[in-house]
């Protein structure tokens, strides 16, 4: 049987970061898609759109990073 604690730990760590990545990827691509569309419609507004895009991507990435931290804690603590 594969239900002992060690293999559950490995499974939990892998699943945690996998699901975090699964949630982050379409969100970041949606942000990038809309901001590139905005830049292409109005190239003069690039300097206003770019900081907002970078901020939004960092926020979204942070949520995936929370999942990564949990998986690291599961593995190493």
């Amino acid at each position: 049987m594969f239900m002992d604690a060690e293999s559950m730990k490995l499974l939990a760590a892998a699943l945690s970061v996998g699901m975090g990545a699964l949630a982050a990827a379409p969100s970041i691509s949606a942000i990038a898609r809309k901001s590139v569309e905005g830049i292409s419609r109005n190239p003069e507004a690039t300097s206003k759109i770019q900081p907002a895009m970078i901020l939004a991507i960092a926020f979204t990435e942070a949520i995936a990073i929370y999942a990564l931290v949990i998986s690291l804690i599961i593995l190493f603590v």
Partner: protein
Amino acid sequence: MEISLKSEVIKVILGFPITNSLILSLSSAFIIIVGSFLIVRSLKLIPSKIQNGFEIIVEAILDFMSQTLGDRELAKKFFPVVAAIFLFILLNNWLGVLPGTGSIGLNETHNGKEVFVPFFRSANSDLNTTIALALIAMAAVQIYGIKKFGFSGYFSKFITLKKGPIYFFVGILELISELSKIISFSFRLFGNIFAGEVLLLIVMNLAPLFAPFPFVILEFFVGFIQALVFAMLTMMFLKVATETAH
């Protein structure tokens, strides 16, 4: 190949443990403070090349801030906190990517096991540093708000008893969101930099000759972006805390 979440203690001086991340964060603080002191001591109206370089950095940060805030005077008011946080985190991250971090160390025995203790470790890969930075940033936001509105004027944003029950709950939610900002600041920076260290460690263990090159460039870039995001978020929260609401 061990990966430890806590940074390893190198030596205990006078009862105070010196960890390997403390060494690097002290070095980056030393570089910033001593460098600025030496430049400011000999300021000239027509700048020398080194002074020109520092002026380019200061001007770039101030221009970026005034572009995002829209007001140059406000940017000058917030500049010390934001630029200090940005430069400190940037130098921490970039010093942690240099070769020698994580590889130069000693083999010690802890509890009967052979452990490798590196001398240098990226300063932001230690949760203590990032929590300290997050606390400083949020404390600065509160202090700027109190300085502008007065003690009771600023805290009436969180605890309002005169406008009805809905506004009371909105105030409590604002209080909780201030606390959650501390957690999100520290864990964003810690997660990014620690994951980068683990990635570099694993890649250098697997294929040490040419494969680490794109990963080192990635870590360089990620370090810059994380410093930028931390500083920009601090600036946004400062602006929100000091503007007259509604």
